[in-house]
């Protein structure tokens, strides 16, 4: 009896997922190009948020320079897929390169930075993000300076270019699906448990035989590679990128969505992205109060609901 009902339940579950997926696929036809564009941005931020969630939410490393790795991905893609250096490599080939570049940079910054105490890491990464932006703005011969890099190729598959809102939506939807899957797998794996152990008590984790520095570097490199992929996606959609796209506010926004959703929680990141990127579009009238409200919300959340709106399952269990 029990067996049968369980089977039925999973079947229902599967039907639900299928309906949900179908709804996501049909969405652009229902909402028009403008909202499809917004949804594309939400998706982009989900990818970024899932990456930062690994660093901040799981491993407990407060990283305030995430935008540097996003910029690195975007500029790597722009350099190799535009007339800038006369190269025109394909998106699919560049994707792993962008991810790898960001991951390596993450490790290179992480090796010295991890030697310092927790809140110093935040300041080091913040400083790194600012240095990156200043260099992008001023190393004109390499980066084009404030004039940016133009005519970046979109991703092309079977002759179809993914740069209109609708096509980009499907592209980003695929990446959201992939990164959600990856994040969930990592979260539930031995690695994910090691990260959480480090977050909760570094000394205890180390006593249990976890190589703390190695796992932290792993978290940084994987988290940053998400940013690299996000940067490539962004550059391929925009077709032109400028240093102004990579300010401190990007880091803060991604951090906010991770915290508001619930640090360490994958559904939280999705909810947080929708709230942070989508909601301001809904509340156009409140646009100028948006940041004011976010600022206050961060303070209030830290005081009353530090675990976020959709806390990670582990934290939920502990509370009850």
């Amino acid at each position, binding site marked *: 009896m029990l067996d049968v009902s369980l089977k039925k339940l999973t079947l229902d579950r599967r039907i639900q997922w299928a309906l949900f997926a179908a709804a996501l696929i049909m969405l652009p036809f229902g909402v028009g190009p403008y909202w499809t564009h917004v949804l594309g941005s939400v998706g982009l931020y989900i990818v970024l948020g899932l990456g930062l969630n690994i660093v901040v939410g799981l491993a407990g490393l407060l990283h305030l320079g995430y935008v540097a790795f996003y910029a690195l991905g975007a500029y790597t893609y722009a350099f190799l897929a535009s007339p800038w250096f006369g190269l025109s490599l394909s998106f699919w080939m560049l994707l792993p390169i962008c991810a790898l570049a960001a991951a390596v940079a993450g490790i290179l910054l992480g090796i010295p930075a991890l030697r310092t105490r*927790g809140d110093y890491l935040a*300041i080091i990464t913040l400083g790194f993000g600012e240095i990156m932006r200043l260099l992008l703005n001023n190393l004109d011969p390499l980066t084009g300076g404030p004039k940016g890099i133009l005519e970046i190729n979109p991703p092309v598959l079977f002759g179809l270019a993914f740069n209109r809102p609708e096509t980009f939506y499907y592209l980003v939807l695929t990446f959201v699906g992939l990164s959600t899957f990856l994040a969930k797998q990592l979260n539930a794996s031995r690695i994910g448990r090691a990260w959480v152990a480090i977050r909760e008590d570094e000394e205890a984790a180390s006593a249990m035989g976890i190589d703390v520095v190695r796992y932290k570097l792993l978290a940084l490199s994987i988290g940053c590679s998400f940013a690299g992929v996000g940067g490539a996606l962004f550059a391929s959609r925009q077709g032109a990128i400028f240093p102004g796209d990579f300010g401190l506010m990007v880091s*803060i926004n991604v951090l906010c969505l991770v915290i508001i959703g619930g640090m360490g929680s994958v559904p939280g990141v999705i909810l947080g992205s929708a709230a942070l990127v989508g909601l301001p579009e809904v509340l156009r009238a409140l646009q*100028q109060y948006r940041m004011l409200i976010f600022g206050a919300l961060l303070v209030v*959340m*830290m005081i009353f609901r530090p675990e976020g709106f959709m806390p990670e399952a582990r934290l939920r269990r502990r509370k009850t």
Partner: protein
Amino acid sequence: MNVELWAHQLVNGLTIGGVYALVALGYTMVYGILLMINFAHGEVFMVGAYAGYFALSFLSAEAYARSHLLLALAFSFFAAMAASGLLAFLLERVAYRPLRRAPRLSPLISAIGASIFIQNGVMLLTGARMKTYPYVFPTGGFRWGVVSISYLRAFIIATSILLMLVLYLFVKHTKVGKAMRAVAEDHDAASLMGIDVNRIIAMTFFLGGVLAGAAGVMVGMLYTQIDHTMGFVPGIKAFTAAVLGGIGHIPGAMLGGFFLGLVETFAVQFLPAVYKDVVAFSLLILVLILRPTGLLGEVVARRA
């Protein structure tokens, strides 16, 4: 580079260094007591610049300010120091005190939130456009041999050193100062000795805010243009100064401020001016990684 130019840059470095030192003191005092980076301190500094601006504009006719220069200066500094002190006090009360026993990351995130809130609050209240400080100082200046210094810069250097001296004597020789040192040493023991720890922490924030407010007016007068985002970069730089001198260490913050001001000013002699901030941020990262206890080598208590 000739001697005159060196002397000129020395004066510039000391001016901006004095400002960094004043802001750095706020970081270092709070860190000394709570082991916490008051990330919103740059915003406290920015609000000081705005309060000073409104005070000077209130005396509106620049002619008045010129004829009663000392009075106008006293009024604007008082307004700025009061506004910043009060803001820092409120900040501690609202954003930090409830989180004193929370995990280490929580106050930092709360501080980022408060920072965003204050920046946008000021922007909504006063408009996003830059404000131009009324020009009150007479032009011209002093001259000794190769060193020439404008009245404004001389005033800023002298005032910043005076304020630092007052703070130093206050912490060293008054009862409240002694209580502050006791709380920095050990909260529980201080509390057992009859010190109201909460009051002392509030006092520390207030004092740090007062100094940052004075620094805000100085920057306003020096660069003449202010806007709601002006607190971020000087905030980070002042933090760098505090770390350079050994965070938690009051004379260290003063030295660190002047050191950073000089390094930054002289770096511009060899690099394009746009790299000034890159130099400061790189110095910050290098010091945090290589010598987190600061250049003076002060051993910081690792209570966390």
